[in-house]
Structures are given as structure tokens and as C-alpha cells.
């Protein structure tokens, strides 16, 4: 199609990135070390409670792969004053929803409920922080449940957990960074109540956690409830977190896996990126770069791989194994993944991706393109901040990972301030360093 003139409906002035609505944050630390962030906001009569423990898959000892996630399941199996199933019944029977999830560097538990259920939610979270029921019976039950979770998400489907389970083995070297965070069945099946008690004692101390409360409540009342219910959790020593960073790759790496259920191939590439916490200024350009490369139909890779060269069935480039650039500490990486037809070789795709990075590195990023990417970033941050749970989780993660809940509020301005030259420099750095490539080969007949 020839170049066309756009009509006047498209605004000519660049859109200025709006900021998040102001949320006053209140912070306190209990005597037992629990860090608390309160973010009152009365726009809707709902509240969110999020408890983030500073332990994730990376902290699992050898022989205990998958334990952080298994333990997350067990935390729903009752506590001192709430028998098995009662946590769910209290939250849902109050009109709320709940969940928990296990990440590389933390494990979180959260609920969002009608405002009138806040005290009950705080009671429930405090009860399991103080004393979860860790019996062999419930652990055995949850081992079965987790095995079905792994079967449904990994073993019984093509591309199961690709590439987050397999790429780290190529991109990293240490056990902490490479092991299977879902867990080997052998490790899972041998987990005992003693292991759980020890894990709880080591990592679930109040001083190793952050509590964030957001939504429709009075700060004074919430402070009183938090102090009453969480204040009684006995202080314990907090673990020393070992550094999980790794030196840069010294050569390109390449590996293949055969997926017995897949009929078409897939490709993943990983690059190391700067420390997202201690070198944030160096890290942020990679966030903008990943959006420029891969977000939306207008992005470079969508244009090149999908629309122009028809090399891929789908493509994605993102930071962090799970696609959230701000939920992990060092080491972390920029990931690319694509599904492609068998007629396209992995080499063709790799060349195209590197070409596009080189083009950003040498050709730079124009004002209009940067403005578009910044507008998309602003829109996505605002959209995530609309639900009270999204806001509250970002405050908890900010406090835990970055030491400051305000990080979530400052992020839009920080990202809007990333200059075009920094994005080009990040692309140049990626071209200069070594990468880890993982090819998924189809093992099933087409």
C-alpha cells in the first residue's frame, strides 16, 4: 500500500504522559519488624490487603526445588485460629477474592474485599503469619494439588512454561538462578512437615515481610487493627539474603529442547541486563526498549517479524522471567520469545531480532516513536493502577524490592524521563554482549 495522508483526526501535538492520581502513603514499622504501608483512597468502598514475604524460588535449597511454591499452597491450609479452608471461606464469605503467588524473589498473599471486611482480612493474614498449620496431612494433599498444577501448566500441554522454566538453565549458572521453580516431582514428594516448619522459621519472620493495605479505610483505625493483630506475631531473626547476581556471559550460549507435544517450533533468547534495583538508572532504558521493540502493533518486532517478513506466528520481548520488569532483583534479563513455522529457521529469527536491535542502536529513536512508546507505557501503568489490588500490590512490591513504596508512584515520571539516546545505548549494549538462545523443537508429528 502506498504511503497515505492521515486525516486531521490524529492529534499533532505530542501527548504529555499523565501522572498517577496522588495517593498519600503512610508507613510504620511494628516492633517485630513488620514493615507496613497504608494507602487510603475512598473512591470505591473496597480494600486490598497484600502481604509480601522476602523469599522466592531463588532461595530454595538444593534438593528442595519447588518448595517456595509448595509452601505458598500450604499457607492456605489453616492457621492457629482458622481451620483448613477457613481462610478462603472468611475472605470469600465476606464478599472478597484472594490468591497467592510465588516469584523469584518474593511470595505474596493478597485479598481484595468490601471495605467492611478489612479487620477480618487483617486478622486472617496475621493469623497465618503467626502460626500456619503445617501438618504432614495437608502437605501431602498440597503436593498432589501442585503436581496437578504442574501437569496442567507444563507436562500435559505443548510449550508448557516455555521459556520461563527452561531458558534460565542457558542464561545463568548458579543453582539459585537455574533450578526448576515449579519443582522436580522427586523433591516435591519428599517434602515433610519438618521442612515446612524450618522454611517458615527461616523466611516467614515478620521482619522479612511487608504488609500493604489500600483502599477505603481510616488510617488511624487501620493502624490500630494492624498493631493489634500483627503486633502479636513474635519477632524472629531475619535471614541474610545471599546475592543472586552473576557475572556477564563470556560467550554466546545455545541449547535445544524437544517438546513431545508441540508440532511447531519456538525460540527464546535471553540477555543479561543491569541490576534493576541498585542500578535503576541504567535499567530503565531497557524497560523502554522492550516496549519499543515489542509492545503493540506499532512496535519494531511486530512490524518486522509479523507484518513485514512473516517470520513469526507470535512474538514477545519483555523483562524478567514473568514479564514484570519490577518484580525481580539482580540477576534478571531481557527475554524474547517467538513461535514460528517450521519453514522459518531459528537463525533467521535471531538475525532479524539482532538487526532490529542494531537499527535502534545505530539509527536511534525518533521523537515521534519515543512519544508513542511513552504514551503506551503511561497508559499501561495507569490501567494497572486503577484496581485497588493493582495499586496495593505495586506499593508492597516497591517497598520490598526497592525499599520504597513510593517507587510505584514515581515510576511513570522516571520512565517518561528516559531519553532516546539511553534507549539506543541499551540496544547497543545488547548487541555487544553475549546472549543465551534456546530452541524448542517439535517432537510431535505435525
Amino acid at each position, binding site marked *: 500500500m502506498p504511503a497515505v495522508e492521515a486525516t486531521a483526526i490524529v492529534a499533532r501535538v505530542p501527548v504529555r504522559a499523565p501522572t498517577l492520581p496522588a495517593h498519600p502513603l503512610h508507613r510504620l514499622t511494628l516492633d517485630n519488624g513488620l514493615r507496613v504501608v497504608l494507602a487510603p483512597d475512598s473512591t470505591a468502598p473496597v480494600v486490598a490487603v497484600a502481604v509480601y514475604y522476602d523469599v522466592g524460588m531463588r532461595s530454595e535449597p538444593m534438593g528442595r526445588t519447588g518448595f517456595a511454591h509448595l509452601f505458598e499452597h500450604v499457607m492456605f491450609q489453616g492457621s*492457629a485460629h482458622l481451620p483448613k479452608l477457613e481462610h*478462603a471461606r472468611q475472605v470469600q464469605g465476606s464478599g472478597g477474592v484472594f490468591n497467592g503467588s510465588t516469584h523469584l524473589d518474593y511470595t505474596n498473599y493478597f485479598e481484595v474485599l468490601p471495605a467492611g471486611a478489612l479487620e477480618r482480612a487483617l486478622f486472617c493474614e496475621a493469623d497465618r503469619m*503467626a502460626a500456619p498449620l503445617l501438618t504432614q496431612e495437608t502437605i501431602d494433599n498440597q503436593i498432589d494439588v501442585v503436581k496437578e498444577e504442574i501437569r496442567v501448566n507444563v507436562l*500435559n500441554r505443548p510449550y508448557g512454561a516455555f521459556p520461563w522454566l527452561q531458558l534460565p538453565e542457558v542464561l545463568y549458572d548458579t543453582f539459585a538462578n537455574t533450578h526448576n521453580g515449579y519443582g522436580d516431582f522427586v523433591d516435591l514428594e519428599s517434602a515433610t512437615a519438618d521442612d515446612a516448619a524450618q522454611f517458615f522459621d527461616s523466611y516467614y519472620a515478620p521482619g522479612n515481610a511487608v504488609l500493604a493495605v489500600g483502599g477505603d479505610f481510616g488510617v488511624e483505625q487501620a493502624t490500630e487493627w494492624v498493631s*493489634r493483630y500483627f503486633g502479636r506475631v513474635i519477632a524472629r531473626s531475619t535471614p541474610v539474603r545471599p546475592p543472586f547476581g552473576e557475572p556477564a556471559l563470556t560467550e554466546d550460549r545455545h541449547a535445544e529442547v524437544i517438546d513431545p507435544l508441540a508440532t511447531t517450533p519456538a525460540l527464546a533468547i535471553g540477555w543479561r541486563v543491569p541490576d534493576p534495583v541498585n542500578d535503576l538508572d541504567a535499567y530503565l532504558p531497557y524497560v523502554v526498549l522492550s516496549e519499543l521493540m515489542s509492545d503493540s502493533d*506499532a512496535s519494531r518486532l511486530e512490524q518486522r517479524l509479523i507484518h513485514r517478513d512473516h517470520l513469526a506466528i507470535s512474538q514477545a520481548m519483555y523483562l524478567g522471567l514473568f514479564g514484570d520488569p519490577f518484580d525481580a532483583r539482580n540477576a534478571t534479563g531481557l527475554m524474547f520469545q517467538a513461535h514460528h513455522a517450521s519453514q522459518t529457521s531459528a537463525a533467521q529469527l535471531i538475525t532479524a531480532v539482532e538487526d532490529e536491535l542494531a537499527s535502534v542502536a545505530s539509527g536511534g529513536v525518533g521523537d515521534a516513536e519515543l512519544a508513542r512508546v511513552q504514551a503506551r507505557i503511561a497508559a499501561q501503568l495507569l490501567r494497572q493502577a486503577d484496581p485497588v489490588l493493582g495499586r496495593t500490590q505495586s506499593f508492597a512490591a516497591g517497598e520490598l524490592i526497592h525499599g520504597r513504596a513510593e517507587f510505584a508512584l514515581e515510576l511513570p515520571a522516571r520512565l517518561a524521563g528516559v531519553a532516546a539516546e539511553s534507549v539506543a545505548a541499551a540496544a547497543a549494549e545488547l548487541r555487544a554482549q553475549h546472549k543465551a538462545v534456546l530452541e524448542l523443537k517439535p517432537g510431535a508429528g505435525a
Partner: protein
Amino acid sequence: MTTETSSELTNGDTSESADMALPPLIEARAGRAPRAVSATLPNGLDTLVVRRPTVPMVEVRLRIPLPAANSATAAATTARGSLMSASMLFGTAQRNQERLANDLAAVGADLSVSADADRLLFSTAVLRTGLSTVLGLLAEVVTSASYPSAEVAAERDRLGQRIAMALTQPAVVARMARSRRLFGDHPYAQTMPDLSVVAGLEAATLRRTHRDRVRPYGATLVVVGDVQPATVVRQATSAFADWVGPARKSRMMPLPDFDPVGITLVDRPGAVQSNVRIGGGAVGRRDPVYAALQLANLIFGGYFSSRLTENLRERNGFTYSPHSGIDNSAAGSTILIDADVASAVTARAVHETWYELGRMALAPVTQDELDSARRYALGTLALSTATQAGLASTLTSLAGQGLSASWLTDYQKAVAGVTIADVQAVSHRYLSVSSLATVVVGDAALVENSLGSLAALRKPG
């Protein structure tokens, strides 16, 4: 388990002071019911706008009915809808694909187009300042999408690859098998476009289908966010002024009857898990017993605190995430029950699911169960409509059945009034094993024998 046996775990704090009792629930102030401003534009487009300035964003949905006329055209309609939705943003009379994508991104938007058996749906969020741009571009797409031949041909190949990939996913295979069992040759049985039909599609066909079917009458525009409704109605009126076309009948044919007897077994050699899928007829949102059925569904398997989760997951460890729910489509509503279970326990899991269905159908639920489900239904409705995106999607879904925002208020009242007897009555009618069809996708060598002891096995249709 009791609190006595567990008190030794409380790190020495064994005193049961008064404040260790479960805190009470406080009646929260009621959330504001969404005040929707509705207008029918001169071209017939129904427009629904809600001011919800929680963040400086706007959610936009445009729903256009696209039902198949009958069974004979179902495969063609599904394939065309699928390729149309994938190709619709490849250019307009004024813009090529890249220009359109750039202009959307410039205001923070990422327009998606999807198709199912009932409708086409455009969906995006946009920065507040970019709403008029998005409405203008949306109007440009519906009035002049160009479907360039070369790009459509490439997308047809990509769609074929995506379908082929989807067909290797057990969840997709299971959904298709249940839909065929429940809907026979009704268009709803077509949950995935047929590869051979897709392969035969040409750009000219899409252009013609677009002209015939993408019309303002029967369509609904929903806008929720940091907006002034009167301004949005003016903007939409102006943006969509050139989108015209006569009204046409667009009614989905009614759902057929199905034979609930027997278990359909779809063999998936080597599977390490079985996908159990059960389904049957349900009542829709307009029905007086809809609220009772929703609460019955919750108690049975609709949330974590349900009987199904307690039985299959928390007691037996058969499955990770069992679930039941009510699907509301234009032609009718359906109850759907899903559980992915270990191969070795497949028949036992089906048996336990049937047992829980029988318990619902034959015995009253407890007052505690009803109260919990009621509060959950009301609470989660408030949560899901508290965000711009949630409210926009809810209103769009209601519009698909010709319902307005006031339905939400009526529904809340209905939920508040449901009794144990009401739940018993709808359970007997809609959750009886004898009225539901069961489908299992799994390794037949491992599950056939034991499943056969529960019911006659049927071959997939």
C-alpha cells in the same frame, strides 16, 4: 482440626483473649451504582457512557453482532469472523497498517479485535486526551477497512498456524468436544475455525462480509472513564456519522436439545492428565431464577469455597483448579463444569463430581453456604464494576443480551432475596446429573475401563 490442637503452634501465645475471636463484618457503604448515559446515535448505534474518573484513562468497547444465519453457514461465518478480526486493522481508506498502529499507540491505545459466534468486539484503553482520536480511528476502520490482499493472504497462513497450534492444547480439544456434544450442528459448536475453510478465504470475501455485516444497527459503543458523557455522545455522533447501513435481522438460532446420556471419551494417547468437561442448559440473566442459579453454581463449584473444590482438590488432591460457571451467550445460557485431573483418578473424579451434583439436586444447602455465596456474589460484582475496564466489559456483555446497566441493580436485589428453597429448586432442575453431558479428554488406555464402569462411553461426534 481445631483451634485447641493448634494453639501449641502459636509460639507460646496460648492465651485466648477476646480479640482473638474473628472480627465482625461491618456493613460497608454501598458503592455508587453506575450512572450510564445512553443515546442512540442518528445512524442507529447504541451508545453507553459512564463517567468514572478514577484514573485519567478511558475504556472503549464496540460490539457488533455477527451471528451465523444457520447451521449451514456456521463454519464459513466462524472462519470469516476470525480472519476479519485478525485483518481488520491492516489499513483503511486513509491509513496503512503501520500508520494506523502508530496513530493508536500515540494516544496510548492498543486496539484489539476479536470474534466469537455472537459478535465482533473492538476493545481498547486510551489516555483521556486521546479518546476523540480513538473514536475517529475506530470509525475509519468500521467504514473503510481495506483488507489488502497480500497482507490478508499472509495473515490467513498465520491464522492457520495459530489454529494448528491451538489444536494441540488439551484445553482447546476439550472445549471443542464439549461444544460438539452440547450444540450438535448449532453454530456454537464451532469454537475454532475450520482449517480448510480458513485456507479458502480471500480478501474479497472479507470485504464483502464486512460491507454486509459490520453495521451500526444492533451494535453498541461503550465508553467508561475520565470523560464527560455529553461530550462523548457528541464526539461519537460526529465520528460515526458516515457509518450507515440498513438494519438487518441478526438473531442467533435457538440452542438445540442434546442427549445427556453417556460419557464422551476423546482419546489423547500419552496424556498425563484428563480434562473432565461437563455441561448443560441454564437460564439467562433475564430469568427470574437466574440469581438462584448463580448462587447454586457458586455453592457447587463456582468459587474456591465450593463443595467441588473442597472435595476434588482439598480432600482428594485430584486436581489443581476445578471450576463451574454459567456462560451467557446470545442464544442461551449454559452451565459449564471443568476439572483437569490426574489420569489415574479420572473415573473417581467424575464420580465425585457427579456425587456433588447429586447432593445439590437432592438435598438443601445450608444457610451458611447460602449466606457465603450471596455475599461473594454481591461483593465480587461490586469489585468487578469498581474499575473502568471491569465496568466497560460488564456493560458490553449485558448489552449483548439487550440488557442495560439497571440490570445490575435488579440482580443485586434478586441475589439478596434468594432462599434455600430457591437454590434447591434450580439445582434440581439444572444441576441434575441426568440433565448434564460429560466429556473426558484423556489417554483412553488408562481411563477407558474405569470410566466405562460409570456410564456407557460414546465416541466423539
